[in-house]
C-alpha cells in the first residue's frame, strides 16, 4: 500500500529501496548520509523482502560488491557522500565500461578534502563530466525534495536497466537531512532468480547453463574492439539525451530573467522567483532534473526570450559552465552560490539576480570568477 509519512530524505530513499524490490545494498557510513544504511539495518529488509544489506570495510569495497552483484543481473545500490564517492570512482568507471546497471547515491557535502559535513553541490563536475577515468558519462538524477528521494530510486533503476549503465542520484546534505511528507510507493516484489535468468541471462554471469559462457569485463586489448566499446557507450548517452531528459520549468512563460538551479538550490530559487514577482520582476526557474542529460535545447530556446540568466548553485560555479555552453553567448549568464556549507537565502538569490543580471544591463564587463562568487 502507498503510504503518507513524515521522513528524512535519507530514510525515504532507504525505504524506497526496500519497496522497489532492490536485491542488495552495500555501503559505508559517512555524514550526511549514514541514515541510509542505519535505516536499512534497523528495518531488517532481509525479513521484509529478502534484500541483502552489508556494511563494507570501505567505499572501495562497497562499490566493488555492487559491481559483483550487478554483474549477475541483480538490482543493487550503494550510497555515500563526497569523500566516499571519490573512492568509488574506480568502481563506477569499471561499471560504465563493463556496462553494468547499478544505482549510486551521493548526498553531497562541502569539499575539497574532508571539507565540511554541511550541504553542498560542489560535486557537480565530478558527477556530470565523468568522475572516474575514461570516456563515459553517468545518467544523473537530482532530487529536490524528500518525495523525489523516494521516487527517484525506482526511476534510477529503470534507467540503469534500460541502458545497462550506472546511474547516479545526486542529492545533497540538505535534501538528505530535512524532513518532509512523502508518499511511499507500494511494495514491489523482488525478482526471483528464475525470472532474473530469463530476463538478464543473455549477458549476466549467473552460471553457464544452456548457453555459452557470459563474461563481464571492461578490458579490450585490441584497439578496434576498445573503440567499438567506447562508441557503444556514446550511443547510449545520445539515446539518453533523446529519450530520457528531465527538467521542470516554473513561471517561464512570460519571464524576462531566468534562474537555473537544481536540487536544494532549486527549492530556494523557487522562493526567490516568488519574491521577485511580488516586486514586479518577471523571473522564471528552469530546474534540470537530470544533470546529464542536460536541458541544453530548452536553455538555448529560453535565451531567445530572457535578458539574462543566473545559475544558482551551492558551489563556486560549476553548472554555470554548462549553462553558458547551452546559451551560446546569446544573453549574459552569471553564477551565484555560497560554499563551505552555507545555504543561500531566497533574498540573497534575488539580490544576486538584481546585482549581477538585472542592474548590469548593457554596462557589463568581463568579470573574474572570484567576483562572481561573492
Amino acid at each position, binding site marked *: 500500500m502507498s503510504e503518507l509519512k513524515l521522513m528524512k530524505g535519507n530514510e525515504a530513499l532507504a525505504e524506497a529501496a526496500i519497496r522497489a524490490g532492490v*536485491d*542488495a545494498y*552495500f555501503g559505508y557510513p559517512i555524514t550526511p548520509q549514514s541514515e541510509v544504511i542505519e535505516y536499512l539495518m534497523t528495518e531488517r529488509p532481509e525479513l521484509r523482502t529478502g534484500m*541483502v544489506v*552489508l556494511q*563494507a*570495510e*570501505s567505499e*572501495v*569495497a*562497497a562499490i*566493488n*560488491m*555492487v*559491481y*559483483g*552483484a*550487478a*554483474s*549477475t543481473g*541483480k538490482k*543493487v545500490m550503494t550510497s555515500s557522500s563526497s569523500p566516499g564517492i571519490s573512492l568509488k570512482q*574506480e*568502481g563506477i568507471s*569499471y561499471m560504465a565500461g*563493463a556496462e553494468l546497471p547499478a544505482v549510486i547515491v551521493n548526498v553531497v557535502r562541502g569539499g575539497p578534502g574532508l571539507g565540511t559535513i554541511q550541504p553542498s553541490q560542489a560535486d557537480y563536475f565530478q558527477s556530470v563530466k565523468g568522475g572516474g577515468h575514461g570516456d563515459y558519462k553517468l545518467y544523473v538524477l537530482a532530487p529536490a525534495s524528500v518525495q523525489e528521494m523516494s521516487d527517484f530510486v525506482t526511476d534510477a533503476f529503470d534507467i540503469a536497466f534500460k541502458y545497462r549503465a550506472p546511474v547516479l542520484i545526486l542529492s545533497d546534505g540538505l535534501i538528505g537531512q530535512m524532513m518532509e511528507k512523502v508518499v511511499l510507493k507500494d511494495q514491489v516484489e523482488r525478482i526471483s*532468480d528464475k525470472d532474473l535468468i530469463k530476463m538478464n541471462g543473455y549477458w549476466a*554471469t*549467473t*552460471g*553457464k*547453463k544452456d548457453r555459452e*559462457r*557470459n*563474461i*563481464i*569485463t*571492461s*578490458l579490450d586489448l585490441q584497439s578496434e574492439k576498445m573503440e567499438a566499446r567506447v562508441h557503444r557507450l556514446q550511443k547510449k548517452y545520445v539515446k539518453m539525451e533523446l529519450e530520457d531528459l528531465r527538467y521542470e520549468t516554473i513561471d517561464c512563460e512570460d519571464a524576462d530573467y531566468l534562474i537555473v538551479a537544481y536540487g536544494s538550490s532549486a527549492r530556494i530559487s523557487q522562493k526567490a522567483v516568488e519574491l521577485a514577482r511580488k516586486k514586479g520582476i518577471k523571473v522564471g526557474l528552469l530546474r534540470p532534473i537530470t544533470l546529464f542529460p542536460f536541458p541544453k535545447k530548452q536553455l538555448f530556446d529560453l535565451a531567445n526570450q530572457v535578458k539574462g540568466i543566473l545559475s544558482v548553485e551551492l558551489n563556486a560555479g560549476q553548472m554555470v559552465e554548462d549553462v553558458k555552453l547551452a546559451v551560446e553567448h546569446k544573453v549574459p549568464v552569471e553564477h551565484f552560490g555560497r560554499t563551505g556549507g552555507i545555504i543561500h537565502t531566497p533574498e540573497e538569490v534575488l539580490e544576486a539576480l538584481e546585482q549581477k543580471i538585472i542592474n548590469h544591463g548593457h554596462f557589463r564587463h568581463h568579470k573574474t570568477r572570484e567576483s562572481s562568487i561573492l
Partner: protein
Amino acid sequence: MDILDIIKPENQVFCKTKLMTDTALSYCPGCGHGTAHNLTMEVIDEMGIVEDTIGVAPVGCSVLAYDFMNIDMTQAAHGRAPAVATGIIRTWPEKYVFTYQGDGDLAAIGTAETIHACNRGENIVIIFINNGIYGMTGGQMAPTTLEGMHTSTSPYGREIKNMGSPLKITELIANLPGVYYVTRQSVHTHKHVRKAKKAIRTAFENTRLKKGLSFVEIVSNCNSGWKMTPNEANIWMEENMFSYFPLGDIKVDGKLK
C-alpha cells in the same frame, strides 16, 4: 593404423581439460598459471558444478583467465576480486564463487578487501598465485618478493629496512576465525600438481558444505619476471621460495595446524 584407433578412452592417459577453451594460453612457457587454471577447471568439471559457478578474474597476468576458463566470469578491478565475489555470493548464496588472484592483486592493492572478505567468512574460494613478483607489468617488486631478490623496482635486491619483509599474507589470513581452510601448494611437478588439485577440490567441497572461506595459495614461478629459464625458475623456487613459504596445510576444518 589410424591415429583415431589409438585415441580411445581406454588408451588415454591425459586429455585436454574439458572446461578450458581452445584459446591459446597467453602465459609464458613454463608458467604455473596455466596449470592452476587447468586444475581449477578440472575440479569444477568433476564436481559437476559449472552451471552454478561464477569466477572472478583479477588484474595481473591472469586478467584474461576468462578467455581460457569456459565458465561465467567477471573481471574485477585490481585487488577488488574478494569484494566482487562478496557481492555475488551474498546475492546468490547457493552458487560456487571463486577468485583467482596474484600476489600484487591479493596482498598489496587488495589487502583490505582480502582480509575483510576472509574475516567475514564469505562462502567463497580464493586461489592465490604467489610468484613473488608483478608478472604482468614487467617484473616489479611484490609484497611477497623475497629478501635480496632482484626486481625492476628493487634492482639491488629487496632490502628489508627500506622495503619491509615479504608478507606472509596466508599465515595472517589463517588466523581469522571466518576462514575454514588454508593451504599452500605448488604446481611444478606431477606430485605437486596432484596435491594441489586435491586442495582445490577440498576448497570447493567446503563451499558446497557452506563452511566459509577456503584459501588455496599456489607458490608459482614467474620465469620471465625472475629472468630465468623455466627449469632454472623451478629449481630457484624450490631452493628459495619454499623455505620462506613452506608448502602444506595451514588450517584444516577451521583448525590451525
